């Protein structure tokens, strides 16, 4: 963990994510409406909003899987696709959005985080199967697994892990990418105290090394403790600012106010 301190200096720009006039829709129904905000590089940002308010949608746009109807996205001041191709964006999906039946081991899952870097390996090396790739990739993978304390389960099929273990594997995969920007969709849901601690500690260390963290969560207590900035989102940006201001009751009430999109009751605070 002490390995390479502050490797994320390469991200020169002050702003890691800059979004303006973003509108997104599924089948014509707008889910995000004219969203604009800016997230500073090297900071820990938390996105808070009720269920169905468009948080996952926002992250999938930043991760490149959903094309917005309108609006402009810049990552580190430049073209987001170019950033992604340089493996500068890591994404940890919300638990439900992955095929846990897939025949793949913990080790191989974590290794997929390196695939972007392997693509830039010299010549024929990029075509090699992951297990024959350069030692460097495997070392990073082993280190990430040790960091989330899952090394003893490396050979297990992912389908046979508990919910909390799966989350740690996804976190390890994210770490192997060594991306200056990480997007995490509700990484703390369904975890016990220790696992939550472990994930938050890992993220804090990453943050100290200069990584920009964008985390969706319903956990207000830990947001208060860890976040540098909070983005209140409900179809559009309600407000953005330091946690102490954003997490006041009146602000949260405004964020949770039902609109025609959010049929489900406002977000409870999980087990915070």
């Amino acid at each position, binding site marked *: 963990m002490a390995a390479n301190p502050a490797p994320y200096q390469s991200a020169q720009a002050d702003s890691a994510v800059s979004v303006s006039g973003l509108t997104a829709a599924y*089948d014509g129904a707008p889910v995000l409406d004219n969203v604009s905000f800016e997230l500073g590089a090297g900071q820990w940002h938390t996105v808070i909003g009720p269920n169905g308010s468009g948080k996952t949608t926002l992250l*999938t746009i930043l*991760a*490149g*899987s959903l094309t917005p109807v309108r609006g402009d996205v810049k990552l580190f001041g430049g073209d987001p*696709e170019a*950033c*992604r*191709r*340089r*493996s500068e*964006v*890591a*994404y940890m*999906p919300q638990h439900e*959005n*992955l*095929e846990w039946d*897939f*025949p*793949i*081991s913990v080790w*191989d*899952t974590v290794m*997929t985080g390196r*695939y*972007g870097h*392997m*693509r830039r390996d010299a010549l024929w090396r990029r*075509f090699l*199967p*992951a297990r024959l790739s350069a030692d460097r990739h495997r070392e990073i993978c082993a280190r990430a697994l040790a960091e989330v304390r899952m090394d003893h389960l490396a050979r297990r*099929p992912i*389908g*046979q892990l508990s919910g909390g273990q799966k989350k740690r594997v996804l976190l390890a*995969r994210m770490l192997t*990418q060594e991306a200056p920007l990480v*997007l995490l969709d509700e990484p703390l849901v369904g975890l016990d105290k220790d696992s939550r601690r472990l994930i938050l500690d890992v993220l804090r260390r990453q943050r100290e090394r200069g990584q920009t963290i964008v985390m969706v969560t319903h956990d207000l207590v830990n947001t208060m403790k860890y976040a540098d900035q909070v983005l209140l989102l409900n179809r559009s940006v309600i407000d953005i600012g330091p946690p102490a201001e954003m997490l006041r009751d009146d602000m949260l009430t405004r964020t949770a106010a039902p609109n025609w999109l959010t049929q489900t009751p406002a977000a409870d605070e999980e087990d915070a």
Partner: protein
Amino acid sequence: MVEGFDAFSRNVVDVLLGGLMGVVGLLPESIAEPFQYAFMQRALLTAIVVGATCGLLSCFIVLKRWSLLGDAISHAVLPGVAIAYLVGWPFFIGAFITGALTSLGIGAIERHTRLKADAAMGVMFTAAFAIGVVIISQIASSTHLMHILFGNVLGVQPAALLLTIIAGLIAVAAVALFYKELLLYTFDPVQTRALGFHSGRIHYGLILLLTLTIVASLETVGIILVVAMLATPGATAHLLTDRLPVMLAIAIGVGVFSAIIGLYLAYYFNLASGGSIVVVASTLFLLALVFSPRHGLLRRWFRDAAIRRAH
């Protein structure tokens, strides 16, 4: 040009068959007996290649839940076969063109209209199939139609065999070279995009590969049954392992084994080759379903019974 290709393929196929027969010659007389005939030798080689190629691709089809798409493409191939027959091209080429066009078209419909994938497939591919049936009923005998629909591996000609081999090699090479991309895309499409891979290219590449495999298998198992070869080996393997490389190996094994045993059955009992191959594959699937040490029904029954006893 077509004649030149015929002569060329006869030579290449002869060389390959020489190698294959060297291996068959090591087997006991009673097993090797049918392969004294040239048509059986060709059938054996075709069956092996088709079984392996289908088995390989079937893993991705099963994991991506694309069985329906495979079925659809196989039907869309028919008008291509008919038109190629009309203008005297190898049917292979016509089949690939219409199969590819329709399967790419379906992606476009899905993206740009409000129709969902299943409706788009249902409409497009039945229409293509109907056109194919209409043309073929005008130009060819009904036995010919039967062979296209149900396959006739015993009648494979050297040119078709060589094209099948080439298609198989392309499929194997593509999967080997882009294994990481295919794994990533079937496992986690969002991560694929986040890492900056072109998921569109991977998607359509996989569809083209699927089309190629279907076309290559037409003569052997036929249009109606090819989808069985594209689903059953993968499904069987999925029941038996939790690792993708092992799954690929098992599926290839299941594909090749079914093809060879099916060929024997077709030869000895004078059955439609496609049908007997698929029956063997389905039997293997049933066995795996019941007896799989990990995900089998038997194991589940025992486990449930043990739990009941414990309470």
